[in-house]
């Protein structure tokens, strides 16, 4: 018997690869390469087949024959099961993954002009719904993983960037932590969905975890990558309102003489007046390489985006530096990363959007006699020349924008230093220390001149805001990972500690008028406030793998939160998972068609506490503002008031069951997974009515109620054609999710209709949604409209659902909900030689929307307004002919299912340039190509289910180039 030695290197870089597993095929005997990539293995015969495997590399099998030295080069593997997947506090081979995890890497990212990271994975992952908040530049998206599991606490996932968990809150001007992350710096996004994957993050994991891995430096010569794009965007649709001619006809036929006299002679399309073509330029330069064995990556980005709403502009710069040297014979790996972002925005006054819908189209934009900056406004002038602005009238939309100057600047820096030490005496044991920071500063001013209609009563406005955020993270863990070939076992154990501190400083300023005089009563009582919360955690995980077939995993985390009283502060979050790699069983092992078949089962408990106030367990007194004082004698006193509190408030808990099956056939040409899950959340952090008199409010945030989410997820990827120069890839995913409230009150009471939510515009304090037991969350709560024989709704006529002969609140019912029951994503890419054509589509089914634009404006009372003015209406008035607003009619709850083509991209690869030192790719993209929907409003895709003042999403054409050398 012989002995073989040799060296294993990376086929691409030529670097040596430590830790490569070398096994004698058919046995459990094997070894690993050492720190320099060398190995020696004994007991071989010429017939021995050696199997070289390494994470992310294609496995290689070599028959020994007569050789004694075998050097092996391992090449990268594309969608290989050996690929390393990021999990909480470590990585795992894809084949071994026990949780429901989806990873999207650079090559699968969405194409086009991408401004925020989450847009990279839009429609790519089953179970993940991403809805951009609006068409405003830099505004970000709302992400829901497997539906919302909370009513009043946060439903946002936890973001972990390079191992550092980010705080949930955004800074003023940045709705979630993702929007201040350069999409060009992102290597991969990993979505963790079930408890097996997320429970290691314990109390912050109920809404799923998004792990972001940023690009790092590479060894070898410097590589420069320059990415540029130019985008032109235009709104694709306006809200259907009466044209000036139709409006005149309407007023002439139905108005009083006084109302007819109010009409002007102009024909103004107000929506046209406030929108324009938006232009975006985006340039990104990155350099990566190594200086004296210190790999680095530096990247810079500058984006300038003008929104479709006139004057709206966002300028954003990113700078990112990353160093990842290794010391002590690669026993100590260091990763230092610092990123910065500066955003300068000029915000257009978005009130103009809805005012453009309702403003009288017969009035001109400009009116030279107007004292309001020369803009037409609804005002009266009496004989003495006193001007009175109609307080009930909308303000001129163009004036709202042009006469407001709102600028903000957000600066943010975040980064981390990670030290990963592999013990010299025990290389199976690693110690990892990760220290991170995230600081930001948002400031801004709003100026409105004294003669502007929008701030006439205060003689203009000159206000300032400043907010500073200071978040700190510290993580330390020990990881022991060893294979025991003798007992065909691998043990991977982890124990760690985490410290997270989030503090925000909000500065309070007085309000000023345009001249700079303080507006009376606006001087703040306190110069600043620092809401702060801290989380401390201990966690552990054990993964045991037997025979590469059976993987058992258990994890436990305990989190302590400053948001809860000492007695309830600590929560315990366990999980357990089992994976069976069926294809490794002897009866399937030899199968040529089946390359992967894996069954995953998991159960775990996660928690949630984000999105609630910081001190709600404490009996505190707070001092009232200077606008809320009381008088005794000749003195004024700030009021000192106790606040409502629940001293017993504690964690919200979600138990998740998950069953999944992963499969791959035909050499991975067809691959996919199916997951079935059931999530049950109890002790909901829920704002509920309490017996009045028992606390300092009628409602309190407490732990009451249960919600369940059930769903099925299907992911399929296929490569139907892979022949010569032609490759065709297809990806499809489907999600079914249904949620239900199963309990809402401490005491069961069948007569309790539920908690109203979802405030709408029009009439003070109206709600259109309800949380009720037995129904979806945020179900619409409405009257059932009665229609005449022509299908026209009859004003104020509703069905007497309880049959008591009276139409009152007792006849309201729950009708549909905003969350889709099913959503689908489809993307495909055809590559032929140097050409690539790709597209992504998304569909959402069963989601409904309350059309608040139509319900608020589509009535005669709005056009022929009793308050001395005329307003425009949506064309819906021709269908309803309603005189008065019928806000609570189910007529306005409309089917908002849709199919949207997110993008269509054509790319051309020019190949090598400059004597093979450069590489140039060009692409052209259309984003937001089309939407097919029955919804009657502007856009069926909207968070929350109430359509009112939506900044429209534009249809964008993008030209881009990528140069690498």
């Amino acid at each position, binding site marked *: 018997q012989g002995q073989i030695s040799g060296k294993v290197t990376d086929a691409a870089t030529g670097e040596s690869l430590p830790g490569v597993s070398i096994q004698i095929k058919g046995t459990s005997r094997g070894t690993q390469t050492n720190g320099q990539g060398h190995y020696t293995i004994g007991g071989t015969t010429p017939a021995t087949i050696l199997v070289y495997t390494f994470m992310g590399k294609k496995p290689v099998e070599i028959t020994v024959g007569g050789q004694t030295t075998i050097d092996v080069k391992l090449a990268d593997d594309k969608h290989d099961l050996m690929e390393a997947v990021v999990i909480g506090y470590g990585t795992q081979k894809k084949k071994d993954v026990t949780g429901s995890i989806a990873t999207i890497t650079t090559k699968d990212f969405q194409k086009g002009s991408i401004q925020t990271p989450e847009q990279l994975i839009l429609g790519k992952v089953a179970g993940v719904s991403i809805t951009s908040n609006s068409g405003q530049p830099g505004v970000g998206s709302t992400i829901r993983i497997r539906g919302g599991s909370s009513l009043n606490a946060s439903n946002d996932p936890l973001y972990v960037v390079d191992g550092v968990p980010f705080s949930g809150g955004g800074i003023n001007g940045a709705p979630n932590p993702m929007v201040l992350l350069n999409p060009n710096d992102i290597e991969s996004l990993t979505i963790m969905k079930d408890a097996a994957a997320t429970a290691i993050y314990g109390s912050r994991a109920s809404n799923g975890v998004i792990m972001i891995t940023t690009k790092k430096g590479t060894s070898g010569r410097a590589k420069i990558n320059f990415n540029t794009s130019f985008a032109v965007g235009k709104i694709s649709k306006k809200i259907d309102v009466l044209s000036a001619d139709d409006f005149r006809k309407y007023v002439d036929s139905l108005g009083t003489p006084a109302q007819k006299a109010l009409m002007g002679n102009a024909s103004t399309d107000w929506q046209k007046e406030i929108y324009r073509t938006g232009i975006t330029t985006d340039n990104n330069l990155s350099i990566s390489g190594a200086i004296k064995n210190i790999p680095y990556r530096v990247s810079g980005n500058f984006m300038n985006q003008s929104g479709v709403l006139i004057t709206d502009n966002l300028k954003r710069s990113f700078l990112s530096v990353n160093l990842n040297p290794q010391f002590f014979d690669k026993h100590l790996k260091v990763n230092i990363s610092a990123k910065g972002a500066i955003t300068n925005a000029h915000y257009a006054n978005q009130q103009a959007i809805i005012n453009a819908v309702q403003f009288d189209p017969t009035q001109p934009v400009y009116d030279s006699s107007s004292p309001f900056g020369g803009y037409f406004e609804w005002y*009266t002038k009496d004989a003495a020349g006193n001007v*009175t602005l*109609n*307080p*009930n009238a909308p303000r001129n939309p163009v004036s709202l924008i042009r006469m407001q100057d709102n600028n903000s600047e957000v600066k943010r820096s975040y980064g981390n230093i990670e030290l990963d030490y592999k013990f010299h005496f025990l290389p199976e044991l690693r110690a990892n220390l990760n220290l991170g920071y995230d600081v930001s500063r948002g400031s801004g001013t709003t100026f409105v001149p004294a003669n502007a209609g929008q701030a006439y009563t*205060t003689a203009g406005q000159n206000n300032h805001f400043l907010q500073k955020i200071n978040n700190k993270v510290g993580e330390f863990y020990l990881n022991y990972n060893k294979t025991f070939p003798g007992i065909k076992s691998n043990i991977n154990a982890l124990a760690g500690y985490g410290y997270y501190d989030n503090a925000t400083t909000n500065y309070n300023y007085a309000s000023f008028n345009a001249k700079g005089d303080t*507006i*009376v*009563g606006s001087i703040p009582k*306190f110069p*600043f*406030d620092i*809401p702060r919360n*801290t989380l*401390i955690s201990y966690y552990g995980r054990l993964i045991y793998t037997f025979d590469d077939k059976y993987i058992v995993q258990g994890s436990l985390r305990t989190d*302590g939160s*400053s948001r809860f009283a000492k007695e309830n502060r600590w929560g315990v979050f366990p999980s357990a998972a089992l994976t069976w790699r069926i294809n490794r069983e002897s009866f399937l092992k030899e199968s040529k068609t089946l390359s992967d078949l894996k069954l995953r089962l998991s159960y775990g408990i996660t928690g949630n506490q984000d999105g609630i106030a*910081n*001190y709600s367990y404490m*009996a505190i*007194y*707070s*001092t*009232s*503002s*200077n*606008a*809320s*004082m009381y*008088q*005794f*004698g*000749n003195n004024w*006193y*700030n*009021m*000192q*008031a*106790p*606040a409502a509190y629940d001293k*017993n408030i504690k964690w919200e808990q979600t138990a998740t069951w998950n069953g999944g099956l992963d499969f791959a056939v035909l050499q991975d040409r067809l691959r996919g997974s199916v997951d079935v899950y059931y999530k049950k959340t109890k002790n909901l952090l829920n704002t509920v009515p*309490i*017996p*009045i*008199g*028992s606390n*300092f*409010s*009628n*409602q309190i945030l407490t732990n009451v109620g249960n919600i369940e989410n059930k769903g099925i997820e299907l992911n399929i990827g296929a490569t139907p054609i892979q022949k010569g120069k032609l490759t065709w890839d297809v990806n499809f995913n489907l999600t079914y999710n249904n949620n239900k409230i199963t309990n809402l009150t401490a005491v069961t009471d069948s*007569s309790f209709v539920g908690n109203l939510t979802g405030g709408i515009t029009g*009439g*003070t*304090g*109206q709600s259109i949604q309800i949380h009720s037991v037995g129904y979806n969350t945020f179900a619409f709560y409405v009257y059932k409209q009665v229609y005449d024989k022509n299908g026209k709704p009859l004003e104020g006529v509703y069905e007497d659902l309880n049959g008591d002969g009276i139409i009152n*609140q007792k006849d309201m019912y729950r009708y549909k909900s905003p969350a889709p029951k099913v959503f689908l994503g489809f993307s495909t890419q055809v590559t032929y030689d140097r050409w690539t054509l790709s597209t992504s589509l998304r569909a959402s089914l069963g989601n409904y929307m309350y059309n608040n634009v139509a319900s608020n404006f589509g009535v005669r009372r709005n056009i022929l307004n*009793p*308050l*001395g003015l005329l307003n425009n209406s949506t064309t819906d008035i021709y269908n309803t002919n309603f005189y*008065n607003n019928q806000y609570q009619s189910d007529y306005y709850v409309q089917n908002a299912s849709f199919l949207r083509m997110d993008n269509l991209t054509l790319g051309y690869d020019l190949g090598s340039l400059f004597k093979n030192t450069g590489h140039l790719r060009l692409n052209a993209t259309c984003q937001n190509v089309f939407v097919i929907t029955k919804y009657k409003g502007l856009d069926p895709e909207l968070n929350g289910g109430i359509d009112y003042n939506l900044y429209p999403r534009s249809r964008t054409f993008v030209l881009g180039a990528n140069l690498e050398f």
Partner: protein
Amino acid sequence: CTKDLDRMPTNATTSEVAYKTLDGYKQVLAKVYGSFALPGNNGTGSSDLAGIDPGQADFLRLFWNAQELPTEEAACVWNDPGIPDFHNMNWTSNNVLLAALYNRSLFHVTIANEFLRESTDEKISSRGFTGKDADDIRTFRAEARFLRAFEYWVLMDLFANPPFVTENDPIGKYIPPQTNRTALFKYVESELLAIEPLVVKARNNEYARVDQAAVWSLLARLYLNAEVYLGKGNGKYTEAITYSSKVINAGYALKSDYKGLFLADNDVNNPEIILPIVYDGVKVQNNGGTTFIINAAINGDMNPASFGVPGGGWGGNRSTKALPDLFTDHSGATDKRAMFYGTKADIDDPAQFTDGLRVIKYRNVTSTGVTPPAPGGAFSSVDFPLFRLAEQYLIYAEAVKRGGAGGDENTAIGYLNALLERAYGNKSADITGYNLDYILAERGRELYWEAFRRSDLIRFEKFTAGTYVWPWKGGIKEGRGVESFRTIYPIPATDLTANPSLKQNTGY
């Protein structure tokens, strides 16, 4: 470092710190009073109570709506939830405005309870207060009891059988038991009698704080309505005379001009107001209170600047024809209390603000025509007279007529004539005798839009009756009677769910 999990808010404090000084006590007392005036602690957008827009969440706006909108004195054009129910007289336990009023009153009770828990003799001495400071805190304490008694009177009058909590009950997981009108009457009466010697003598306290006259005034009002609360035959008219007389003899006088009672400087040189709710366009900003009463009463066509609200004019409330009809001449030329605007007294279209005469009794300008400062030009600085001398005159006269002892008709006629002489500026309208119907009409003329009318109509058995109707009463133009159970408002559905000890009032 798990100590880092003990975080404290920056600008808030614990009760121990809040009650450390006399000034601290006074600041909490300001909240006990301010719960009348303001919806919350932090400007117009904040509210102590959820489920209601902060602009509608203050006591006076809610109380005013509940007392005025279901009567002939006012009808509102707004379509906001809960508003149309009032004039239509078809409110249910889901009415958001009634729920908000009920919550507001009980919140006020809870705030008073908290103050009482923290101002016991033990707490005062354990915190080291002695002498005058300790006495001051004891006086504060008596005033907090008064405000709580006032709110229980409101709850008894409107909701009859509310939950009952005192300073002896805990904050937190607690189910307050339900009480009833009879028990509540006894409680309010005993509280008022108990604090009578503890509060400052009449007209000796700081402006806007409770004194003995306020205690007597509420007692007189309570006794006048005793038959409503305790059932027929249980009248306490003698007591009503006793306590209204105490007020009348305490040195108050009618303000010389009626109009001046409702102007922005009604807090100065005003001998008539016994206890106001204080408002200020800068320091007590809110969209309820007198800001609401004034702005809702006018619209942009009426030159809002002349009402001291250049940035206001919401166009909501106006009168039904039955209110101006209480005056023989509603032009204001003779009886100057008739302050109406517009020409069309009939409401043909209930959604048209210009149908029905507008009421311009309240104006946010001073007696010299100056508009006080207010950001945005819509907040009012007019204080609301919660108790004023004229009401006590009317209580005296009515109680005498209803058979109370200790008073006489001649004195009563003198009081009534004093009101008329102020109204007319001379003796031309003086009376020599009166009956109960006169009292009801005169209360309408003297006290309209001061949140009395619903209680008055109930006491005179005209609130739900088909024999006394006004335009659009019960939702039809000619007016109609409604079910008699509507003299009591329903317990809100929200609290019926949250508090299993509650039973709904009859009829709902």
